[in-house]
């Protein structure tokens, strides 16, 4: 189950960078987040998941990466407001795109954006948080996946 979900989000993030940045995002080996581990980079966004699954999806990235990405989508004068908007949009897009495989019951909230750390990961009950490292154009970022199937709806 966890492997399937991680593969779905790996495909979503790869597709995002291929389409928006015209380049390949290299994904590292997913690993379990350790308790109290500091995982936040400069900008983070979280989307709540309800319906067929419950939990949260996070995307966190450093300012330098977002400044490199923003001009590729037409934002030629990157600033912190646009960085915050971009992590929110990336989180929304990869979570929404996951519905292609997880179905319409995979309900996503609007993104909540955080600047700076520490990032407290809200783990679904009886669930764990996997960190999926993403490298694009030598810049590192992370997708955090902490969801599990909602047995009440299955």
């Amino acid at each position, binding site marked *: 189950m966890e492997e399937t979900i991680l593969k779905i989000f790996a495909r979503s993030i790869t*597709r*995002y960078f291929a*389409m*928006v940045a015209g380049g390949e995002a290299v994904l590292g080996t997913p690993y379990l987040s350790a308790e109290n581990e500091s995982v936040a980079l400069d900008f983070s966004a979280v989307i709540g998941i309800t319906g067929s699954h419950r939990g949260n999806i996070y995307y966190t990235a450093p300012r330098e990466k977002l400044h490199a990405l923003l001009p590729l*989508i*037409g*934002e030629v004068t990157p600033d912190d*407001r*646009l960085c915050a*908007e*971009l992590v*929110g*949009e990336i989180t*929304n*897009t*990869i*979570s*929404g*795109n*996951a*519905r*292609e495989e*997880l*179905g*319409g019951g*995979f309900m*996503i*909230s*609007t993104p909540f954006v955080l600047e700076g750390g520490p990032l407290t990961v809200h783990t679904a009950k009886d669930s764990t948080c996997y960190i999926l490292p993403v490298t694009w154009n030598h810049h590192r970022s992370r997708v955090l996946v902490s969801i599990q199937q909602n047995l009440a709806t299955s």
Partner: protein
Amino acid sequence: MKLLIVDDSLIMRRAIERSLARTRFKEVRTATNGRLAVEMFDRYQPDVVTMDITMPDMDGLTAVDLILKRNPKAVILVVSALADKATAVEAIKRGAQGFLLKPITAEAVQTALDDILSD
């Protein structure tokens, strides 16, 4: 022609607006949720609306319903990250003329707008 862009993401509103450089729209307005979109539709009477789905306050599919009640001939392109087929089908069932999946490119926006306006 007049266009109303509805999306809670500033990045997306600006990306869609930039993609219009080679299109026929001379006036562009924006709204950040479905409720404001309906208000803007009443005041502004756009020829075309691009509509996100997942937004605070009022979602895009509800806004599609309310706009089409006001004007059954309203032309609406839904632009969303929700990639399941059922969502796209639902948007079209409710009366949207097209569905464009995020992430978008300028070319995809232009093509989608050309398609719905040529129908």
